[in-house]
């Protein structure tokens, strides 16, 4: 399972990086989204993989998933949305003010 997770995170990061390097704003936004999936997953699995043991205290249970990375990732997801929204609106504004959607603000 660990190998699979590692491959999935690597794939997401690689796809994200490729899209991040595109010249138009929309693919870049897609790339940022993919990259943040990769980062969130990566942070999350720093607490290692545990199945069927959510961090909800129940009497008589001793095994729990690590709650700390989960709390970190939870806010990271929401902030990630805030960041995506910011970049998207920035892209819209740039298109409105500069007349194109190239990341450098000018057609090549």
């Amino acid at each position: 399972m660990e190998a699979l997770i590692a491959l999935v995170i690597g794939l997401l990061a690689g796809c994200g990086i490729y899209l991040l390097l595109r010249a138009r704003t929309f693919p870049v936004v897609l790339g940022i989204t993919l990259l943040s999936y990769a980062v969130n997953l990566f942070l999350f699995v720093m607490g290692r993989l545990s199945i069927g043991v959510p961090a909800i205290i129940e009497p008589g249970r001793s095994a729990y998933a690590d709650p700390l990375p989960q709390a970190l990732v939870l806010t990271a997801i929401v902030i990630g949305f805030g960041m995506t929204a910011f970049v998207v609106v920035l892209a819209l504004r740039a298109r409105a003010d500069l007349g194109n959607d190239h990341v450098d603000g000018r057609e090549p």
Partner: protein
Amino acid sequence: MTQLALIVLIPFIGALLPSWALTAGRLWSAWVTGGVVVSALALLVAPAWAVMQGETLLWQLDWLPALGLSLGFRLDGLALLFALMILVIGLLVILYARWYLAERDPMGRFYAYLLLFMGSMLGLVMSENLIQLLMFWELTSISSFLLISYWRQREDARRGARMALAITGGGGLALLGGILLLGEIVGSYDLSTVLAAREIIHAHPLYLPALVLILLGIFTKSAQFPFHFWLPHAMAAPTPVSAYLHSATMVKAGVFLLARLFPALSGSEAWTWLVAPTGMATLLIGAYTALFKHDLKGLLAYSTISHLGLITLLFGIGSPLAAVAGLFHIMNHATFKASLFMAAGIIDHEAGTRDMRRLAGLWRFMPQTGLLAMIAAAAMAGVPLLNGFLSKEMFFEKTVYMATFEESTWLLPVLATIAGALAVAYSLRFIHDVFFNGTPTDLPRTPHEPVRWMRVPVEILVVICIAVGIFPSLTFGPLLAVAAGATLQAPLPAYSLKVWHGFTPALGMSMLALSGGALIYAIRRPLFRWHERTLGQLDARWLYEVWERALLQGSRVLDHLIHRRSLQDMLAVLIIAAAAMLLLGFWGMPLTGSATLTPLDPVSAAAAFCLAVGALGTVVLHRQRWTALVMLSVVGLIIALAFVKFSAPDLALTQLAVEMVTIILLLLALHFLPAETPRESSLARKLRDLLLALLGGGLTTVLTWAVLTRPYDSISDWLLRNSVPGGGGSNVVNVILVDFRGFDTLGEITVLAIAAIGIYMMLRDLRLEAPRADAQGRPWSSDAHPLILATFSRLLLPLALMVAVFILLRGHHLPGGGFIAGLIIAVALVMQYLANGVLWTQTRLSGELHPLIGLGLLLATATGLGSWYFGAPFLTSAHGHWSVPILGEIELASAMLFDIGVMLVVIGITLVILIRLGRIGLMQRRAPISNSDPKP
């Protein structure tokens, strides 16, 4: 002694008021500003009384005790002396500025900056913690920058302000290094500890570097040679600013620190050899240059430099008596120099020029101002029966003492007498050239006495000069005694504040200086001619300018080197750098650790396959943007499933909700962006990017594998154990968010709110052309909203809201919480917009939504502050059981309020973004059509 913190805080809070009061009139603005200062003074009365009895008041609030960081204020004699000067002279400057500023000058801004500066100075002189002192030190640099550049339309004001900021800011950097070293040597940043650790500091090998760095900070701030040149250029500020900054405050901050750290740092050979010659050089150069300045304020500026040099020299001599004399001169200089600056401002204001070559014979037009200026100038020159005479006398006495008993050189008293004579000469020039010396010829206006109230501050200060000059021990005496006690941190040496000490060498030097000064002034014409030909050509500024130019040029070259003006190239560099660091850092480590692995199950493998198809699909199809978006949403959903699988139900819920709003957002954005990406990347570019992607992805895989196969210890055991007893909730993730790490969460929702404000501003009056047809030329549908969707969404709304409340309430114990509830409410409301159109929804959900963000932040912060009321640290949570009729026993934690705040912020930001974007589409099409239906 919370009062101490309040005294510092009041000017900062008060800085908000002047602009607001300006709506009621300019006089009101001045009144309110004065009121702020008076209330700070009133608060100072009781502590001041205690300090005068010999107490040292301390107030401390621990922040990060482990790092030696705390908020601490200290009021002892030295701090009291400076606090009084800052507040009283500040008050007079406020009164003066009311009449000085022209109608077109924005008064609210002026008073706001002045109060900011005043608060920074108060914080500086009353700091107990050295790091905190440094913070306020930097704040004075920044706020004085704002004050000096107050007339920002003027080039010389901007230039002068920039120079002052560069020099004092650079000095602040050195001071930071020095203070860190000092704290390292002593093991504490608390002033009380540092002042008592003289022996440790002097014996430490780092003493010299620390001393040099701290002195660099002091010398730049107090305009000591060779850093003095910024001060004359700061004269581009309005005169009230000069009167305040260069008499009692800004430049005195340097000598304040000299006095503050005197018991800890002084007394070594290095101290004497670094401080005393610098002071001497500054004293002489300042006094000499002042004589040849034609600008009134220029003369005063160099005279200020010279007097600061004198004070520095006194502290450099290092004996307790010299330090007392230095303190006394700080007080005297503040009074006469403030009044002289104000008088110069009046002359400028009423005569229209400050050039002494044009001014003459003003005595006939403004005798009262003339008399005041004359007395103040006499105090500056050191004429008997005025306060300047007393401290200068003490200074002469110290130089003689040094010469006879400690060093076998007569150089010191001779140089001191020469400096004294020069001071007499420039004071004479100030009076004679302006008020006498013939009749004025080409003045811009006919001079006359100023408004009565403009003269009042000068009168008060001049009266102080005379009173102190005649009855020194009755006036400044007691304050000087406590200030000296606090400076020395030792019993006071024997000294007497008297006008007449008998026929002493010092008296002889005074008389020599007075007659010598008169002589110098008498032969000023040949002297001026000689100066113009020789030394007048020199200006220490050129060094600064050479440096400035070199630095700018260097930055430009560096910028051209690394800034390629292409985001793609910059990102590529970034990715290569990150990969290189990863490789460097982990090179040679074993790839696989020893942890036991989890077995793979077929469902997970299938899900991973779907995710891979989605991710690769997004990349391959990224030109067809709509299709790529659908592919992307597949990835997001599978990530949510992964969270479910690996025991993170909260994350799964959040991911699901965020996925929905993200996709809606991207669909809305896509409406205004081209539907397809043009093919423009070259094959080489694509290959390069592919290589980078493989590198980045591959390294991430390796890194993840390496981490996952290693065993680890978590710090979470403590969290798991204390979640129920300490936080009152069994959902540990939620308890971490709202309780254990509540402060982080507060920070995070603040970041969200800031992002929302940015988005709000960018969307304001954004004009975008929405396409009327898709890429194939098919027109966009103008169908009304599907009836079934509209009906069902209306029915679903209350249900969705109820689910959200349920999720919020149970969040503390079971998966859920404010973040998720907020997202669900946002999705439910956005759903109404989608199904029923913006117009329909707007008539039912009127009002702006962005206030929700502020409300949420306020609620979360207030919950945190609420714990202060119960004497607990910020954001301490309380919980308990209540029995409610019908519902029965329920458990509530104060963290619930915090969570509601989080929820409101999340609702606010989501709706602000989505609905405002939707409205832009509406404005474009002017028809109530669903804005997010991307299908043509």
